[in-house]
């Protein structure tokens, strides 16, 4: 059966020939004969003996024979390139051999007999196969361990039915539109064998990993083939030639300010990173040919706008565009460089007219303008001008223009002008999706790799995943490419490892974003396990509240809870001054590492409906909102909504989406992710009820239930809002014992601050009791305590220090009259 398939493949004769005469041996022979010819000729000139000429003839004959052999082998090895219809036809007719690549044919020749496939022989052959070792490296599978596992599970004589694997491989290959059946397809079909699947499971490799690495290898091979085929028509005709710009006019002034993109790309190999972006080249071409020949390329910096334009420039240079666009010069100017050096608006307009006029007169120029919106701003400021009227005649002229701008720039200029929208075609470039970005990284990492540095596929995928999830202020592929470079640098300079793994990427992202993305380990594990205890070091009482919060956070970080919601969301209810804000600060310090990672909103400032614009931005003025801008800049932070009951209901509705889906779309159309934030809303609503129920001795559970019912009855919070929090945490009024503990903590903190001066305040039970009594009020809770300590005790110490009644090294006893004094 295998012989039938190999005959169908057309590679059987070649495989037999290669077994007879190894290509490497012939290649060495060829080198030998070539060197021998050169040596013989050299010896002739040195020794002046005709004998060497005769030897050189024989060696030359040998060289020619081996050369012809090598060319023949190369030709026979050429890859099949079947179109989808033909591929499907062969699969339907079960002529699987016609699908084989040469490599697969050779491997199966060595490992099959009749209708049986021998896995041991298969992997034995692959043990010396360069392509397979490349795949193992990219999958982070140590070769020695892998082959040891294989030898363990597959005995020498174990065979499996060949046709089963052939069918699986062919059908899977068909679904991904491969041009032939390769080794990667075969390995994927082998996953249906439990032993092989178990081995890969041990190495944490899944089918999609095999597929990604296989496709990566195919693309590499295709690129290498394209470079090797330098005599092909496609390669040879990738030139502009002499004299194409002799008919175009001189552009003396434009040359001072412009960059010639077509000259820049002339000798550059075609950028391959246009997966998914190739369509934009066609759109730009169509836009330049149709209508008035003006195009505006809109996209955020980093999505690949300039890459697309460079690729288009290369197509223009190589004559691969339609008629009139062929061989034109693409000159790029930047609005900033044009407007720089001009004192008045008129000077700027004259300069713009001069450059545009020159481009039009030249006749062979496509003008590319970076930051195009700066010329069309109806509210001119420094670096921006309103040249719309002046440029209108050029927009209606035959001059080809490509403008580049971002969403904001477009919306605030052309987006508001219907006449310009009619004249200019919009081409919107969006960021690459994760699969396209991964492919770009796979191709790009070749420029960073060296003999001593390699990226695994898992590391590249981790870069895409983490950048997509955690970096919001830059689009793909820019942010992923940045992290790719940073990771390479990190591994080269900070580690002795030469294989870039997912862990290295996590480390780089953690350093870059301050978000602890590394797997929960070490210090963070301890923090989460003992979170209640850590919080209790700062928070007095409120035991149940701290337990609720800690459980929710443990769920979040262990990966059990949904990844589409914030880390944690809590509604703190309770009277004022009982520790709600202090708990928030403690959480920020313990979990986020810094109290400054709190983004605080006083919701009493958002009582009007139009305050939404302040939160999520204004579509008219194109200004970002405070909430969304802060979260974009600091995706890993704690958002505190103080006095949340005072906010307008429409504003509370915004947070429904945040709490449910972990993201919010702002007024500028950007989707802002909240999945790395913690959201805490505080409210004093129901404080009286809490005091009443506590004094009645109602248990915590009942208290919470009655409180929530009360809040809903009063219309303060809607049920759908309350239900979306991970926990509604009730803070109880502080008991006198707790107040005394707080007073002790505050005095201890004061002593810590006085330690510099070697002064210590004697903290007596009487002192703390008095502080607890005087520092508490039903209205403000324990808040007055700090003010009391500051006004009375700290003032007393300060006065004593200045008047020298308190000296260094002294233990100070606070007189009771200090605290008894009336204001």
């Amino acid at each position, binding site marked *: 059966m295998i012989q039938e398939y190999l005959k169908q493949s057309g590679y059987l004769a070649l495989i037999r020939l290669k077994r007879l005469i190894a290509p490497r041996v012939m290649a060495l022979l060829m080198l030998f004969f070539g060197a021998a010819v050169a040596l013989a000729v050299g010896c002739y000139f040195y020794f002046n003996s005709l004998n060497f000429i*005769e030897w050189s003839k024989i060696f030359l004959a040998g060289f020619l024979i081996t050369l012809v052999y090598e060319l023949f082998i190369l030709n026979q090895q050429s890859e099949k390139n079947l179109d989808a219809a033909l591929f499907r036809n062969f699969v339907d007719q079960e002529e699987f051999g016609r699908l084989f690549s040469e490599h697969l044919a050779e491997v199966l020749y060595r490992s099959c007999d009749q209708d049986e496939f021998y896995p041991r022989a298969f992997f034995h052959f692959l043990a010396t196969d360069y392509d397979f070792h490349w795949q193992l490296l990219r999958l982070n599978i140590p070769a020695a361990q892998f082959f040891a596992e294989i030898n363990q599970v597959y005995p020498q004589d174990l065979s499996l039915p060949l046709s089963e694997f052939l069918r699986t491989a062919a059908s899977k290959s068909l679904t991904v539109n491969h041009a032939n059946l390769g080794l990667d397809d075969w390995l994927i079909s082998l996953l249906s064998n439990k032993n092989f699947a178990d081995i890969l499971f041990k190495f944490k490799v899944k089918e999609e990993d095999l597929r990604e690495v296989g496709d990566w290898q195919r693309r590499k091979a295709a690129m290498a083939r394209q470079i090797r085929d330098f005599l092909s028509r496609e390669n040879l005709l990738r030139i502009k030639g002499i004299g194409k710009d*002799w008919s175009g006019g001189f552009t003396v002034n434009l040359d001072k300010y412009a960059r010639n993109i077509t000259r820049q790309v002339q000798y550059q190999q075609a950028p391959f990173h246009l997966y998914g972006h190739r369509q934009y080249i066609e759109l730009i071409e169509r836009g330049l040919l149709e209508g008035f020949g003006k195009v505006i390329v809109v996209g955020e910096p980093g999505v690949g706008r300039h890459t697309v334009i460079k690729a288009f420039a290369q197509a223009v240079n190589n004559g691969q565009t339609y008629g009139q666009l062929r061989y034109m010069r693409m000159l790029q100017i930047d609005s900033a460089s044009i407007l720089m050096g001009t004192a008045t608006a008129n000077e700027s307009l004259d300069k713009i007219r001069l450059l545009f006029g020159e481009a039009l007169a030249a006749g062979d120029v496509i003008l590319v303008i970076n930051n195009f919106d700066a010329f069309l701003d109806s509210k001119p400021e420094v670096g921006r001008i309103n040249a719309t009227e002046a440029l209108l005649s050029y927009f209606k002229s035959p001059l080809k223009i490509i403008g580049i701008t971002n969403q904001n720039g477009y919306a605030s200029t052309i987006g508001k002008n219907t006449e310009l929208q009619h004249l200019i075609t919009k081409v919107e470039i969006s960021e690459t999706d994760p699969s396209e970005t991964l492919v770009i990284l796979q191709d790009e990492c070749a420029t960073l790799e060296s003999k001593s540095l390699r990226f695994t596929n898992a590391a590249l995928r981790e870069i895409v995943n983490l950048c997509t999830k955690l970096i919001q202020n830059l689009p793909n592929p820019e942010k992923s490419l940045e992290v790719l470079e940073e990771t390479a640098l990190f591994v080269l300079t900070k580690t002795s490892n030469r294989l870039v793994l997912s862990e290295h990427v996590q480390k780089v992202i953690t350093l870059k974003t301050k978000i602890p993305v590394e797997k929960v380990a070490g210090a963070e594990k301890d923090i989460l396990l003992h979170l209640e205890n850590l919080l209790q070091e700062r928070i007095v009482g409120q035991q149940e509240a701290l337990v609720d919060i800690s459980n929710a956070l443990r769920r979040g970080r262990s990966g059990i809870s949904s990844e589409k919601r914030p880390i944690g969301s809590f509604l703190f209810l309770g009277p004022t001054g009982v520790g709600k804000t202090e708990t928030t600060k403690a959480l920020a310090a313990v979990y986020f590492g810094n109290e400054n990672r709190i983004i605080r909103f006083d919701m009493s400032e958002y009582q009007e409906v139009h305050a939404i614009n302040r939160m999520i931005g204004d579509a008219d003025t194109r200004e970002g909102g405070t909430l969304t801008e802060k979260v974009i800049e600091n995706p890993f932070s704690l958002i505190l909504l103080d006095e949340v009951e005072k906010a307008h209901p429409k504003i509370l509705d915004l947070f429904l989406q945040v709490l449910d889906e972990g993201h919010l779309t702002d007024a500028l159309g950007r989707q802002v992710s909240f999945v790395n934030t913690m959201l805490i809303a505080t409210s004093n609503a129901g404080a009286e009820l809490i005091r009443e129920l506590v004094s009645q001795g109602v248990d915590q559970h009942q208290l919470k239930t009655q409180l929530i019912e009360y809040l809903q009855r009063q219309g303060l919070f809607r049920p759908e809002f309350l239900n979306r929090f991970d926990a509604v945490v009730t803070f109880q009024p502080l008991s006198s014992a707790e107040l005394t503990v707080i007073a002790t903590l505050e005095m201890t903190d004061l002593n810590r601050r006085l330690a510099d001066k070697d002064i210590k305040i004697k903290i007596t039970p009487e002192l703390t009791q008095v502080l607890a009594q005087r520092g508490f009020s039903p209205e403000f809770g324990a808040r007055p305590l700090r003010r009391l300590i500051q006004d009375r005790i700290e003032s007393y110490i300060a006065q004593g220090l200045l008047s020298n009644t308190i000296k260094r090294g002294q233990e100070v006893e606070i007189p009771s009259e200090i605290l008894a004094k009336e204001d």
Partner: protein
Amino acid sequence: MTDSILLRFLGWYFAYVPLTILQIGENFILWAWRFFSIGFLTMRIFAPWHKDISSYGLGFDFERWSKIFLWNLISRFIGALLRVSVILIGISTELLIIALTIAGFVLWFVLPLIILALIFSGLANLKIA
């Protein structure tokens, strides 16, 4: 496709490679045509050099008109001179490529004879001391 390596070799040697040589020759001819812009320059042979011409302006003044006419003529002459030079070099290159392609085509067919001649001639004249 045949299974015999010999037949496949003969098919490759006497059919595939000669066709490939012709194809490569054709590719280079196209390359030279584009590199020297032969067609492109021919269509614009008398175009002014870099569009460097002056307008005749309003009104008719014989002296001014003559000067402008002469300058424009010079500009077209310069353009034509350069273009014709490049076209001629291009055509020469094309002819050279055609000659090399034919030579390569013929050489390939006689290569076995050449190899045999080299071996026999070498062995015959070799003096082994």
